[in-house]
């Protein structure tokens, strides 16, 4: 009994400590983003005297946040669609066994373990060569490329559960290679594709390194690049940069509030196999 009591204390101590270290910084950031610069120094712990979104509206005025947010959205959606299309098509092709299919499979996932930040120079040149430097499309294409192996692994794993008999029967019914893909395999694989999509959207939204080396002006820069400018330009207006930071993380957190289980599954999907 005594040890059960002790382990109860331990359980709640661990939970309590990690709740505090996880939540307090974000709470502090959000509350501070509602304060005035003066208040931030004079009253660091308390709630703001007046609840005002002034820092948020002034953040939009100080930097083109709307454009950054739009670029992030375009890059995330485009790269997700590209990676999903490439991964689904390839997974379907590999449902058919042929002489080199094992080799192709290994070829398609070998990038999984490579630290892509070692490739910033060649990728920079490839994007230049394609005429996509300083465009949001270049950023999107790179995201699709570097996250392809994991999206492929997730979708392939799911597609392998489609029974071979189903494909055989459809073939005997006269359905073509393309028909079987679009009308039978793809609908069955929607859950796997959604899992990959969640992971792709979130990683693309949050990426910084490639977005910063592939773009140089605001019409192509994403919010992760742009949010840093609140620190480096002008004399720092802290509550305003807090507000900008909050806005950069609101979209993913909001999605997480509604879809937490799916997002957890999506982001850890790479660990399934």
């Amino acid at each position: 009994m005594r040890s059960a009591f002790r382990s109860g204390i331990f359980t709640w101590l661990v939970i309590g400590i990690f709740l505090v270290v996880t939540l307090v910084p974000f709470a502090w950031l959000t509350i501070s983003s509602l304060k005035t610069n003066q208040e931030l120094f004079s009253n660091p712990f308390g709630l703001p005297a007046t609840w005002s979104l002034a820092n948020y509206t002034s953040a939009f005025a100080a930097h083109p946040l709307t454009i950054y947010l739009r670029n992030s959205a375009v890059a995330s959606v485009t790269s997700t669609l590209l990676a999903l299309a490439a991964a689904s098509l390839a997974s379907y092709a590999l449902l058919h066994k042929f002489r080199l299919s094992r080799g192709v499979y290994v070829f398609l996932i070998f990038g999984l373990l490579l630290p892509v930040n070692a490739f910033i120079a060649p990728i920079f040149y490839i994007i230049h060569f394609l005429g996509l430097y300083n465009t949001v499309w270049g950023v999107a294409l790179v995201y699709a490329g570097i996250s392809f192996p994991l999206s492929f692994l997730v979708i392939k794993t799911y597609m392998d559960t489609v029974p071979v008999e189903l494909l055989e029967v459809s073939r005997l019914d006269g359905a073509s290679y393309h028909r079987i893909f679009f009308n039978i395999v793809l609908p069955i694989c929607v859950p796997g594709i959604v899992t990959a999509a969640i992971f792709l959207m979130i990683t693309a939204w949050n990426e910084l390194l490639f977005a910063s080396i592939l773009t140089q002006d605001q019409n192509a820069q994403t919010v992760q690049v742009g949010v840093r400018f609140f620190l480096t330009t002008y004399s720092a207006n802290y509550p305003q940069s807090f507000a900008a930071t909050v806005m950069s993380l609101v979209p993913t957190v909001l999605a997480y509030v509604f879809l937490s289980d799916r997002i957890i599954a999506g982001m850890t999907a790479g660990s399934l196999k």
Partner: protein
Amino acid sequence: MATKPQIALYLLPAVALVLGFFVIPLLFIIYMSFHQWAGLGPATFMGLDNFTYLFNDNSFRTALTNTLIWVGVGTFIHTPLCLMVALVLSRRPFMWKFFRTIFFLPNVISTTAIALLWYFLYHVDLGLFNKVLDAIGLGGVARAWLADPNTALPATLLPWVIYIGFGMVIFLTQISTIPTEFYEAVQLDGATSWQQDLHITIPLIRRAIALQVLFVVGYALKMFEYPFIMTNGGPANKTINLSLYIYRQMITANQYGLSMAAGVVTLAVGTALLSIIFLVLRRVDS
């Protein structure tokens, strides 16, 4: 039967992406690591000079050491914390699902935003750390955490160490697959929950632990935002790592050959660490 052209057509986009973003870059950095190149014009063959330069360059050696420190801290401090929280939540205390959701939250937030947040937390005048220390009478300990050479590296590591959500979920998922019968026998013998964890749960999730260490290595090798945003490698290169070094040689110094040679070293370090993980796992398995 599907024809060869049909299959090839469906493989085309995937093969193009892998060629463009993995195969060509990989061959390119290996080739260029033996050259001096300013990014434009012809490259000059230098043999192993780039590598000799790197290993004589103090900032590169620090970058390499710091990356290995990240791997070490991730493996021996961060991962045990993930495991501890997973074991605690695996007994399904009241509202455990809710806590799991909260602990995972930092993983959906960009590392950029987290790095900025901690930059603010550490701020010498307005940061939460110094304000709390002041309030509890420890104002003497307060300092510019990110500018102090003694605290800068631990300070950039701390957020990663305490955000245990990702590893915790990997462990929890694995633990949930262990049949309860495994525990029943030892429970009759009066084994405490700690003994059950040590003798049953931990050995059974060893593959998940290896996987988590694999993620730690990947994370440490790719980590860019924390040093870039919080310290930009400073003070006096105390917090630089391989990613930041690669970035700096390319963007700031225009030394493309050196940057790519550093990339090759990063790949080699990754391969070496990966082999160690697989060797250890095989040892434990047999």
